[in-house]
């Protein structure tokens, strides 16, 4: 049995019984990276020696009975936009190409406290701006199910690493679908928690009112385990919510009798792949068969979500990315004639085309004369989108939708037209605007053997309801047991 194929909960059990060691697991993962990452290209930085060294220490602690969590001694990859003390954190951007953070993000500090092993930092769209990982400033990550296709994005490196067995689980971040959509494309589980559930301290900011960190795992049980580790209030993030964190593994129940599942009619639109629609409708039938009560709901402003998002997210990004000026850290262009010229040259040479495009759009939307027409209007429509969900959740406990309108598309297929790329996030974006939690789980495969994702959405701070529904569905199906062949 190959250890890299196992889950956190499998390995935790084996480590506790002394059936394997953290060193053996970590070596299996590092060897797997060496064997397949030249094809998949999931990692920007591989932390091989330090990881094996940490694993040796973990084994001593496990023997001494000091293992304090289910992730103890387990290799979990980190998306390269979360700060890791002493380990390069690039955001897949040339502007941060040499940046070595002097501190850990809170999620990383929590994982360290829980004894995890860090095999490396994963590739992404530059500054998390993209849906395909093609916007990485370094290289494109490939989908382990079909190397000619995108792994989704922006957390494409994390999703591909989980799917390829190049880690046991991973963290990603989600601003408009960047955990859920790559999870769907790569056939893994990905959860975006409620905004404020997980600290953003040390996460390189893209759009601060939308960004949220979450797990990418091989099954729902691992998602609950990893969310337990990273959730909670953090005084270092003033937008993290001071609200009690339940034990999410308690929500892993197979019985969904009486659970009300809503199907938003606006999500089954023209242009959706028929295979995706069928898989999602079949998944809803499975939930119904398990005792859930299925009903139609309406989210009338769905058609405005992408437009709203690309005003608000780019506006926030243009402000957040103003800090990259070549002064305190990151890339500085040579040969500038004065300070202003240094700012302009450093930014123009350091940022890639999509990042520049979004900075331009956001700067325009916030500039004098356009603020009311774009930014304020976007914020008002955001209110309407949020109210749609508030109304729907008066009738149902969870909402079921496709995660993405199609399975993974071909590399290069949408890169020429930014708007087409933006529209691939149509089912995930409203969730960030409303701040609610969402999970994507595998619900089938296309005829060409590409994974399809089912998205389940819940009320604010009710991750338990979507974990519950997702677990019940997963246990009734076999999709999560399929692994990509490489």
């Amino acid at each position, binding site marked *: 049995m190959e250890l890299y194929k196992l889950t956190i909960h499998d390995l935790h059990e084996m480590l506790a019984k002394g059936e394997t060691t953290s060193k053996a697991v970590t070596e299996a993962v590092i060897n797997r990276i060496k064997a397949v990452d030249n094809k998949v290209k999931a990692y920007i930085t591989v932390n091989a020696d330090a990881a094996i060294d940490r694993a040796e220490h973990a084994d001593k602690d496990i023997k001494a009975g000091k293992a304090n969590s289910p992730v103890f001694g387990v290799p979990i990859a980190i998306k390269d936009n979360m700060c890791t003390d002493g380990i390069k954190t690039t955001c897949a951007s040339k502007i941060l190409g040499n940046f070595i953070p002097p501190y850990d993000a809170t999620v990383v500090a929590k994982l360290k406290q829980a004894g995890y092993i860090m095999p490396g930092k994963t590739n992404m769209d530059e500054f998390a701006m993209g849906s395909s990982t093609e916007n990485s400033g370094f290289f494109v990550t490939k989908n382990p199910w079909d190397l000619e296709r995108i792994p989704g994005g922006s957390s494409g490196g994390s999703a591909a690493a989980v799917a390829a067995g190049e880690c046991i689980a991973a963290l990603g971040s989600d601003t408009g679908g960047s955990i859920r959509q790559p999870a769907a494309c790569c056939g893994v589980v990905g959860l975006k928690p409620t905004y404020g559930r997980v600290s953003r301290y040390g996460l390189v900011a893209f759009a601060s009112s939308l960004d949220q960190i979450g797990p990418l795992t091989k099954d729902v049980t691992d998602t609950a385990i990893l969310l337990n580790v990273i959730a909670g209030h953090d005084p270092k993030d003033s937008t993290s919510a001071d609200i009690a964190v339940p034990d999410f593994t308690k929500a892993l129940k197979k019985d969904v009798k009486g659970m009300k599942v809503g199907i938003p009619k606006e999500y089954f639109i023209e242009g959706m792949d028929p295979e995706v629609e069928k898989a999602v409708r079949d998944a809803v039938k499975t939930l119904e068969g398990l005792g859930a009560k299925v009903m139609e709901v309406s989210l009338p402003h769905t*058609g405005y979500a992408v437009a709203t998002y*690309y005003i608000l997210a780019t506006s926030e990004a243009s402000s957040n990315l103003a800090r990259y000026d070549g002064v305190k*850290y990151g890339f500085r262009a040579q040969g500038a004639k*004065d300070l202003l010229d240094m700012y302009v040259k450093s930014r123009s040479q350091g940022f890639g085309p999509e990042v520049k495009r979004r900075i*331009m759009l956001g700067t325009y939307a916030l500039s004098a004369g356009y603020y009311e027409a774009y930014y304020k209007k976007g914020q008002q429509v955001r*209110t*309407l989108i*949020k109210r749609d969900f508030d109304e729907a959740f008066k009738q149902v406990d969870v909402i079921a939708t496709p995660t993405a309108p199609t399975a993974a598309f071909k590399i290069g297929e949408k890169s020429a037209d930014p708007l087409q790329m933006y529209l691939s996030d149509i089912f995930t974006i409203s969730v960030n605007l409303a701040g609610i939690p969402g999970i994507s789980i595998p619900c089938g495969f296309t005829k060409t053997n590409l994974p399809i994702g089912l998205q389940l959405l819940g009320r*604010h701070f009710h991750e338990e309801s979507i974990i519950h529904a997702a677990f019940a569905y997963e246990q009734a199906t076999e999709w999560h047991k399929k692994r990509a062949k490489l």
Partner: protein
Amino acid sequence: MKISKQEVEHVAKLARLEFSQQEKEKLTQQLSNILTYVEKLGELDTKGVEPTSHVLDIKNVMRDDVIAGSLPQDRALANAPEKAAGHYKVPLIIE
């Protein structure tokens, strides 16, 4: 065109970015397409709708004014592209 090349040049100046002529033309086209798409928000009547800047009901988070850990100077300067005498060094600002 929703946005002119002159406007693109103005916004680039505000954003501290520079582009080649070719890039400017491409951006003008792409931003115009995106802005035309975004115009659909105008279909909605939002009169009297409160804008949402933040989804949670958290306001004015305060903490006690106590000294906490901070980075020592050498670590804070470790990523500086140029430094001198414990400071960040930048090109000439005033003649």
